[in-house]
């Protein structure tokens, strides 16, 4: 089995649930306090992805980037060398959709070959949902990115989203 590594970034507005996705589904060594100090925290997620009739053990180094504006200037350098990004929005907050294009643009500026996956989080909060599925699908289509309705709380489709990102990162 081939072992590969790839850097991927988690992008999204403040409180959309990026850190919750990371906290629940990946290996953490560092505390969340790094997010508020240097604006990033790195975690690890190992996924097995198929490639050319073989299986690649892909170690995703997840750079969870702080969503607050104070780190905007620094974010560009954190994006360097990333193979892909998981852009996260919140289905219960319409305003979090507005920045998706901005994040995608920043990513493609720094890494033109980077791949994107869109995660519309908090799908478990059905009653509070203000964004419809077709709106998310439309944005994903514009970005030519696969889209997942996720719930970090309930564990819905998170694994799939990471796995898809991994497949894209190794070129499948």
């Amino acid at each position, binding site marked *: 089995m*081939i*072992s*590969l*590594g*790839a*850097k991927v970034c988690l992008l999204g507005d403040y409180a959309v649930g990026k850190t919750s996705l990371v906290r629940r589904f990946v290996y953490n*060594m*560092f505390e969340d306090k*790094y997010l508020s100090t*240097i*604006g*990033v*925290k*790195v*975690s*690890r997620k190992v996924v097995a992805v198929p490639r050319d009739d073989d299986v690649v053990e*892909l*170690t995703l*180094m997840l*750079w969870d980037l702080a969503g607050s504006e104070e780190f905007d*200037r*620094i974010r560009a*350098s*954190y994006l*360097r*060398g*990333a*193979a892909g990004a998981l852009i996260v929005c919140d289905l219960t907050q319409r305003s979090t959709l507005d920045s998706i294009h901005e994040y995608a643009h920043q990513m493609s500026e720094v890494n033109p070959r980077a791949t994107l996956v869109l995660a519309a989080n908090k799908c478990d909060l059905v009653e509070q949902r203000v964004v419809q599925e077709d709106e998310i699908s439309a944005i994903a289509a514009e970005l030519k990115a696969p889209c997942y309705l996720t719930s970090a709380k309930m564990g819905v489709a998170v694994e799939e989203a990471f796995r898809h990102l991994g497949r894209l*990162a*190794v070129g499948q």
Partner: protein
Amino acid sequence: MDAARGAEPEGDRIDDALLDDLRDIVAGPDRERMRLLETRIALVEHRTGDHEALAAAVSPILGDAIRRQVREDRDEMVESLYPIIGQLITRAVAEAIRDLARTIDQRMRTSFSPAYFVRRLQARARGVSGAELALRDALPFKVAELFLIHRESGLLLLHLPQEPLSISGAEDNSDLVSSMLTAIRDFAQDAFGQDQQGGLDEIQYGDRRILIEALQHAYLAVVVDGVEPAGFRTKLREQGIEIENTYLDVLRDYSGDASQLDAAQTNLARLMEEGFGEDEPADLSSSQKRIAVGLVVVLTLCLLGACLGGAIWARNALKRPAYVVVVTATPGPAEAATATTVPTGTPAATATPTVTVTASPTTTLTPTSTATVTASPTATRTVGPAASAQVVVIANLRAEPSLTSAIIERAAIGSTYTVLGRDATGGWLQVCCTTRGDAGWLATALATISGSMESVPIVGEE
């Protein structure tokens, strides 16, 4: 009794009730206070009985009290604590000095190798005494861990722990450490570096330090304990440049497959070797380097001069005719003198009345000089490793080899680039790479060049 109580008149029962009420009114608050006091006493007894609870209750107060005392009357605190702390410190220092003395003794006993002798001579030449050298050598230095990290992505390329993880049993988090270290470097660069090139060189945490040596596409992070020996940084840079040159294609478009760099472990293992740098000569200062170069040049010239002089002398000796003039003096009255020299000598003999000189034609030429010149055409042209240029002042990298050309990046002092080419005048070097990965032109005068320039092509010449 019950019968008697039952026989109590109605008026008495009312009086008792009134008396109770009166007692409640008069003594009620006191009774309540008593109950509270009993509760508090029980709590205090519980706390004093439970040492941990007592310590937890007292420690904040104690801490505050000590802080206040230190603030208000430092001298008194010093005097009070000295008998305890002073003795502890004295004991610790004495123990450290004993360890140091033992290490120096050990080294003195085992350091009679020729290499150490040469090193001692070198140290002496630089004004460092043998004792100072021994003391310096006795200072501990250890490479604890070594990371080779991809510069852009922060992905771990190689990791050399001092003790294999399978033995130490520790979880391998080196990839997370390398990524976070990269994030910290990026943060420091963005926060403090502004538009300058360069970056974080060192992180110190207690006695442990992380030395960082940035290369073009990767960087080395070495976790060390103690003070690194002279020349360690240079060695680090050299190993890094060697790896960079060997794996340039892999590093430039890194695919995430770290196994491609497995062979580079050999380079890094050298840095991990225990006692590294002991026999490494210290870096010379620029003035010392100039003097050394001057001495070498003078010695070379002297040697050439001696050879040349020897050759001329030998040539002249070969050409010069050696002849023997046999002079025979024949005493007698006749004054006849004939002198013949062969082939060129024409001595004019002056006869005196008392001496007859007869030069017999027995002059013999005996050329005995033999000049043997052996040319040994064995000089081999050696092309060294790719040349690199280290910027000595803040310099501009330009799009073309001209001062009027556009500036594409500003290079900080100490930035090192690989030399790709040069212009026909030699005044400009084409170097690689800018932070964007492009090549740029750097004025030769602004950089120190290491490595061979022989293989560097002239760019733009047909």
